[in-house]
């Protein structure tokens, strides 16, 4: 049953993105806002706005009861969770289905199964997908040392209950394990309520590549190509692109095949992303995790395939016919996205909320801006620092890099500090132009000389 009215359960640029897609499909929109977002662009664009609670996320956007209650009371037949917040919490998906509200995303069971990293690894293993050589949960330092002996140093320890770098550390020898194990477990306990750690081999020269997928819930899954998200700082992506230009055809084909295999084995429904590490030296791909939501960087996949992924999310959720023929999807351009953050890169990336006096993004062919900002917008201090995304598209990577350099040059934001300066530095760096980057490149090569 095609969706008629959706509750947009997020904020900022993704709320605007979801409303745009809904409007294109003739779906009415109800935007929920915290007190701090009453005057936001999403609130202005939506057919109706409801104020949930105070500015603090836990009293507004992070309260599943408030969200579902608002959906029911405004006669919404569906709810779109966006990314972050509760988008990967089975509790929200469950509450929606308990109350007859269609959750625009996978089922609660799928979210549950793939949300636990260790369970996800087991599922991938069963589906015949290669994993980074690693372990199950590691209870203590002694077990860690034993495991490391089997895997071979260097190793990386990760939290099974969550990501974003918390509870994560690299160990090059037994001493490193001694120093960091307990601390990491405590960090994970604090961040995710679960201190369980596991271990993987550390891949030194790695690319973070991920595959955008869409499933119909009945076993059919298509992909929209891969993205290269290797430019990261503290495991947060900064620049993403599509496709991963340095991957040879055979590895790329294996990547896509693995992603499809994994998710069709679960009858995956709606949009998702399967993340892998690509070992540049050995040409191996290793499964890392699945993100059961639309992601920040989805626009680059849209730009190179011509697809509208958020519209497809609505169509799948509403049971409408969607073309699931892989041969109809072609990647034939190159796109790069830079995340624009309200932060001061020269001062340890401290967040920089405040009023934007002038918001002057670049314009021209092949330039796309996904943002909720405008002249006079007050960037609130309560939420994450991303204020927009700049996406450029061109015929190939070299042309895309040139276009991005010019676009960043043209971009003017006055009134708050942003990461535009470091983005300009990244994109014009010889390593970036030569596509000789890795997941450690930004931190080890660029940030070091940028601080000067």
């Amino acid at each position, binding site marked *: 049953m095609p969706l008629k009215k959706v509750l947009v359960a997020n904020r900022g640029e993704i709320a605007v993105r979801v409303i745009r897609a809904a409007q294109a499909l003739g779906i009415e929109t109800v935007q929920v806002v915290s007190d701090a977002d009453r005057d936001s662009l999403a609130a202005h664009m939506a057919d109706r706005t*409801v*104020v949930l609670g105070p500015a603090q996320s836990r009293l507004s956007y992070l309260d599943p009861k408030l969200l579902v209650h608002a959906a029911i009371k405004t006669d919404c037949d569906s709810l779109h969770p966006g990314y972050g917040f509760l988008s990967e919490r089975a509790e929200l998906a469950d*509450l929606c289905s308990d109350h007859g509200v269609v959750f625009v995303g996978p089922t609660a069971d799928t979210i549950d199964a793939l949300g636990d990293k260790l369970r996800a690894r087991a599922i991938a293993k069963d589906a015949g997908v290669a994993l980074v050589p690693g372990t199950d949960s590691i209870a203590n330092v002694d077990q860690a040392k034993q495991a490391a002996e089997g895997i071979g140093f260097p190793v990386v320890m990760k939290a099974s209950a969550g990501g974003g770098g918390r509870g994560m550390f690299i160990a090059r020898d037994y001493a490193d394990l001694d120093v960091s194990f307990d601390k990491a477990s405590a960090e994970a306990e604090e961040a995710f309520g679960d201190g369980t750690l596991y271990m993987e081999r550390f891949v030194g020269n790695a690319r973070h590549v991920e595959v955008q997928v869409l499933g119909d819930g009945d076993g059919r899954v298509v992909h929209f190509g891969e993205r290269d998200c290797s430019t990261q700082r503290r495991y947060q992506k900064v620049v993403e692109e599509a496709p991963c230009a340095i991957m040879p055809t055979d590895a790329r084909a294996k990547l896509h095949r693995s992603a499809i295999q994994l998710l069709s084995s679960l009858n995956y429904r709606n949009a998702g992303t399967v993340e892998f590490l690509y070992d540049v030296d050995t040409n191996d791909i290793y499964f890392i995790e699945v993100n059961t939501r639309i992601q920040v960087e989805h626009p680059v996949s849209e730009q190179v395939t011509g697809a509208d992924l958020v519209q497809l999310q609505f169509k799948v959720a509403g049971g409408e016919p969607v073309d699931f023929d892989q041969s109809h999807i072609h990647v034939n351009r190159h796109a790069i996205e830079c995340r624009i953050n309200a932060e001061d890169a020269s001062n340890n990336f401290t967040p920089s909320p405040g009023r934007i006096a002038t918001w002057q993004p670049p314009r021209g062919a092949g330039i796309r801006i996904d943002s909720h900002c405008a002249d006079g917008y007050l960037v609130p201090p309560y939420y994450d620092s991303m204020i927009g995304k700049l996406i450029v598209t061109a015929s190939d990577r070299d042309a895309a890099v040139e276009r991005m350099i010019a676009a960043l040059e043209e971009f003017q934001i006055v009134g708050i500090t942003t990461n535009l300066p470091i983005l300009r530095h990244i994109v014009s760096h010889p390593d970036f132009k030569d596509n000789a980057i890795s997941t450690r490149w930004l931190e080890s090569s660029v940030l070091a000389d940028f601080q000067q």
Partner: protein
Amino acid sequence: MANPDAKDIESLVTLFNQSDWDEMHLKTDDLEIFLSNDPKATGPTQMIATATGALAPVETSAQSADTDEAKITPAGADTTVVTDVADGLLAVRAPNLGTFYRAPKPGAPPYIEVGQAVEPDTEVCLIEVMKLFTPVRAGSAGVVREICIADGQMVEFGQVLVIIEPRA
């Protein structure tokens, strides 16, 4: 349970004892029974737990006086208008989005009526979110001048619920 007999009541008491509920109030045409683990309880004062079970009334303090200007979103969007409160009067505001209830349970007398005297901790209404009921208190001593919301209406965070004329 029509024409309940001693056995039915015994079953209810057994079930209650086996459960982890603190109290139970059951009312049908033929029977009204109140069971509680609290030796000081004198009868039902709380909301009825709903069919889905969990009831967790959370105490909140009512919003203090606030004479902010009305916040109206420009044409194209429909947001609920938070009205001005006249000089000298105090507004009790919604602590979060939810459904406004005038009485502890359907059919029961409402917490307050216009003209009633209230103290700071007098309960004036309930805000319900997904079966979670939060009593809202007057916040000041005075007289109820206006009850701004109809029973069962959805309210948003900060919306004016009740207007009180404070005692001098």
